[in-house]
């Protein structure tokens, strides 16, 4: 069994999650401060990929990044770089599809943040950067972790947009999901089943990790508040 699709899926998901983490946090933080109308508009645009079929996202990305399209042509001309049909093209697709999950989870947890803590930090002379990284982010860590894990899990399974922008080339752009489809289409049922089982195993492990993280956090909270009452 050639493990390349597993390796490829994991690295695409990891790279995309890394970018989505920062993009999601930045968007959630800055958009919350915008005037209502602009906030509402951006909210709709940024959440759209969540409800659009991934193939539509793939189509739009191809229109943007294809070798004869605006961005694609520019990169081809200046860097001799083709943005589509490589393994890392899938990263673009996955970022766009997965971004709303991170953005919405983080925004919800930022909204639950007690702004008084930020004011207290400011009056104590702490810089806004310090307050953001050392007070706001730790306060919202549950939402941040949940968003990242969700994003990673969804990134691993992305099929529609990935298949359009990266295609399926064995040993190059193949991911688990495109491999399963390809194997089933070519009547290689036994191998397809193996990959399905691998996929189920990974997803189960991820969900297990999420549950453990939640339990651990609940336990520490309980211990703290229990002592406070005593």
């Amino acid at each position: 069994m050639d493990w390349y699709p597993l390796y490829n899926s994991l690295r695409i998901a990891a790279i995309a999650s890394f970018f989505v983490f920062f993009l999601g946090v930045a968007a959630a933080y800055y958009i919350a401060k915008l005037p209502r109308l602009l906030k509402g508009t951006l909210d709709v645009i940024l959440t759209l990929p969540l409800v659009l079929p991934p193939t539509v996202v793939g189509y739009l990305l191809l229109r943007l990044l294809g070798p004869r399209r605006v961005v694609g042509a520019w990169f081809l001309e200046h860097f001799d770089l083709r943005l589509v049909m490589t393994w890392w093209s899938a990263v673009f697709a996955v970022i766009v599809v997965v971004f709303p999950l991170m953005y919405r989870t983080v925004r919800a947890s930022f909204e639950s943040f007690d702004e008084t803590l930020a004011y207290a930090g400011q009056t104590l002379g702490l810089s806004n950067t310090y307050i953001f990284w050392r007070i706001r982010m730790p306060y919202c860590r549950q939402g941040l972790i949940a968003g990242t894990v969700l994003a990673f899990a969804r990134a691993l399974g992305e099929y529609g947009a990935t298949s359009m922008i990266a295609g399926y080339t064995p040993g190059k752009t193949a991911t688990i999901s495109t491999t399963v489809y390809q194997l089933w289409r070519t009547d290689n049922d036994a191998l397809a089943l193996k990959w399905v089982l691998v996929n189920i195993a990974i997803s189960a492990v991820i969900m297990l990790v999420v549950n453990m993280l939640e339990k651990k956090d609940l336990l520490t909270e309980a211990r703290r508040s229990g002592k406070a009452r005593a």
Partner: protein
Amino acid sequence: MSLIVDIEKRLGAFTLRAELEARGGEALALLGPSGCGKTVTLKCVAGILTPDRGHIELDGRVLYDSKDQIDLPPQERQIGYLFQQYALFPNMTVEQNILCGIQRGGKAEKAELAAAQIRRFRLGGLEKQYPAQLSGGQQQRVALARILASGPQAVLLDEPFSALDSFLKWNLELELGEMLSGFPGPLLWVSHDVGECRRNCRKVCVMESGNTDPVIPIEELFTRPASRSAARLAGCKNFLRAERAAEGLRLPEWDVTLPLQPEQSGFDTMAVFNAAILPDGGELSLRVCRVIEDVDGYILLLRPEDAAPSAPFLRFESPVPHAVGETLGLGFRTDKLFFF
């Protein structure tokens, strides 16, 4: 050292016009009912909110000036702010909470200063605890220790005891007064509780619906309140319509004329503090209409026998019980009657 505030800010339909001066080492109470703009004033002083126009100055240092377009961020104002719920950082230990506000000095110096604050505020042994593990009193001490460790030139207290039961409140109040007693800078104490202000502050600035009265020594709030709202905040519960008449002072709601000649003119209301009411030997005969048992005495609602059904009652807190229907001959101490 003094804190000078003269600002204006609109928030929707609400307009704040605050003008006050707090001197160093002399706690100034900002007293007013909920929603009168006390907290907004504090937030403007601290730099959390920006006024629309005006001037804020601390110890000769301009913090905000709309004409000169000066608006220092809260970080540069050196003003400590004690929030209602203390706003301790939940992810940091007691020690880290205190350390993070200390800006100057090397690592060793900072640790030493933090240790000194921990000793001074009797927090020894709690250094590694998280805020959620502390009692309300300990949290207050950590919050104060953190503020004073950051070296503020003025301290603002925003209703420090609003969410506490009365016994705990009293203990924390004693402690807070003690901890702040040596603070040399201006202290602005926001509260809606006149007793709390009286016990802890020497000056008071009464605030109502966004406007400040002039700053006065706090005892004057009780000896000669400047306005109806000041009298109300000082604990006066009786406000009767009153007008000057040929034979004395007429109370039109009761259709009664008292043999009193107030020195003032241009008033329409008489404020009667409880201490102004002499329960017997007076000429005003009032009927006891209701008796309400209170914690340490009785509240009597009194009115002339033939008064209209809509006429207001005089509320009198009596140490001894009286029966409903009884008639009392009341007199007034004229030095405790105020006219607005």
